[in-house]
């Protein structure tokens, strides 16, 4: 195994991209994604990769070029955040609908307005129905490792879908951490060679991408995408397991932390899981039966596995880093409560919206959530609450 390196999440994303050595990278700068593409541009300038780097004039063209490149046949990577993701939204759907296994790092950042450059999940949550596999990462190590798993997952013959690798803007993208890396040869061995799937560049077997699909066939193509997502779930599990065995670093679609004998738990994603683990450790040392569930795989949403993890708990708080205006709580809460609806003896489930626009969530605030869960025991009053906003 190769060495440990100190790197920020964005550098981990760039370094893993270098090791993947994709055919094409197309991207456009946006805070807090820029340092990934700057680093990758250095690799290109120094001849450390064979990649064609396309510095496009907008995120819309970034995803458009990715679609053209992936349809032409080869490995394609991009990255963006917030307004950039919003600008490419139209083509995000097209990438998935054309079954193109593009990898996109999203340095999660709040959407405008007002403009804000810090981390929340409003950008990628807006794309949750786009047909992309979404994996949310806690730290730079996870980002690094998920890139390799993402290549295998997206290109899997039963799946053929694009994969979004999410990391919290600034918190993970810019924080320097220790990352255990693989040797280039080890990466190559794990990801394998790209296998073409009806490439445009196969001149002898011409294919038409993106036809007009009307009432007679559109629904069938959408049904295929549903199936692809269903098939993706066991594939993500299998490849996570394979990668865990390969590297000794454990990955799964969910990470449960002291859930087995817990009375109450917090469900959350990305970097907040790290803070929550710290709080769980502290409270456990005080004899309090608290646990945490980190959701890594948000799309496809692992319903059965969630039920297994949360059954038997008395109360659960779901922490969402994005709001669904006019909806019933945040997107993660929606999914979790929906998944648990038919479970006998299901826990009481409440929602906390936190951290919009990158507002910090502290260990004290998380402990406060656990305290309320423990005090209420049976049913928490109210459904949707807010952490750290003035006036509530």
């Amino acid at each position, binding site marked *: 195994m190769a060495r440990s390196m100190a790197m920020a999440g964005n550098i981990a994303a760039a370094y893993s991209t270098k090791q993947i050595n994709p055919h094409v990278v197309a991207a456009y700068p946006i805070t807090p994604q820029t340092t990934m593409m700057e680093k990758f541009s250095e690799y290109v300038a120094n001849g450390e990769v064979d990649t064609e780097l396309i510095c496009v004039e907008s995120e819309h063209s970034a995803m458009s070029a990715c679609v053209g490149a992936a349809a032409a046949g080869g490995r394609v990577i991009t990255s963006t955040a917030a307004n950039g993701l919003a600008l490419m939204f139209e083509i995000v759907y097209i990438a998935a609908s054309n079954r193109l296994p593009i990898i996109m790092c999203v340095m999660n950042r709040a959407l405008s307005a007002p403009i804000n450059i810090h981390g929340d999940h409003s950008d990628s949550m807006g794309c949750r129905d786009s047909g992309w596999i979404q994996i949310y990462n806690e730290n730079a190590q996870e980002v690094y490792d998920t890139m390799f798993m993402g290549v295998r997952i997206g290109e899997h013959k039963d799946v053929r879908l694009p994969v979004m690798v999410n990391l919290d803007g600034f918190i993970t993208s810019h924080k320097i951490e220790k990352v255990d890396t693989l040797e280039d040869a080890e990466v190559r061995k794990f990801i394998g060679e790209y296998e073409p799937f009806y490439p445009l560049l196969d001149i002898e077997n011409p294919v*038409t*991408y993106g036809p007009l699909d009307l009432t007679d066939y559109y629904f069938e193509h959408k049904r295929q995408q549903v199936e692809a997502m269903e098939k993706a779930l066991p594939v993500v599990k299998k490849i996570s397991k394979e990668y865990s065995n390969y590297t000794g670093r454990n990955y799964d679609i969910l990470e449960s932390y002291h859930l087995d004998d817990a009375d109450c738990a917090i469900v959350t994603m990305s970097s907040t899981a790290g803070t929550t683990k710290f709080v769980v450790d502290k409270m456990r040392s005080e004899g309090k039966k608290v646990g945490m569930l980190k959701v890594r795989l948000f799309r496809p949403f692992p319903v059965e596995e969630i039920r297994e993890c949360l059954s038997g708990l008395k109360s659960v708080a779901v922490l969402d880093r994005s709001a669904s205006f006019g909806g019933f709580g945040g997107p993660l809460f929606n999914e979790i409560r929906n998944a648990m609806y038919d479970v006998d003896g299901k826990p009481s489930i409440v929602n906390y919206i936190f951290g919009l626009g990158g507002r910090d969530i502290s260990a004290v605030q998380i402990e406060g959530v656990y305290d309320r869960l423990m005090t209420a025991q049976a049913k928490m009053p109210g459904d949707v609450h807010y952490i750290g906003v003035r006036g509530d």
Partner: protein
Amino acid sequence: MDQEKTWKEIPWGGLILDAGNAQEYHTGDWRTERPVHIMENCKHCMYCWICCPDSAVIVKDKKMVGVDFDFCKGCGICMKVCPFDAIKMVVEGEEGD
């Protein structure tokens, strides 16, 4: 192609693998007028062929030999561009000569 195929039987992503299969779809029945090729006037200049929107002028061995009525929509461009009166338009269903 069979219009009744299920989602399990068609290629993923809306891909069409049978290049040029639009030829199975005949637009000839759109026609209200029909070009008639008058061979004795024809100099095989290929003006009609290069201006046809529907790839419907049949050329064999560099000679204009007729019109593919599976695809000809009867626009009449061939008649208009012909410098030699070698194409005339007649109402569909009526005799050409």
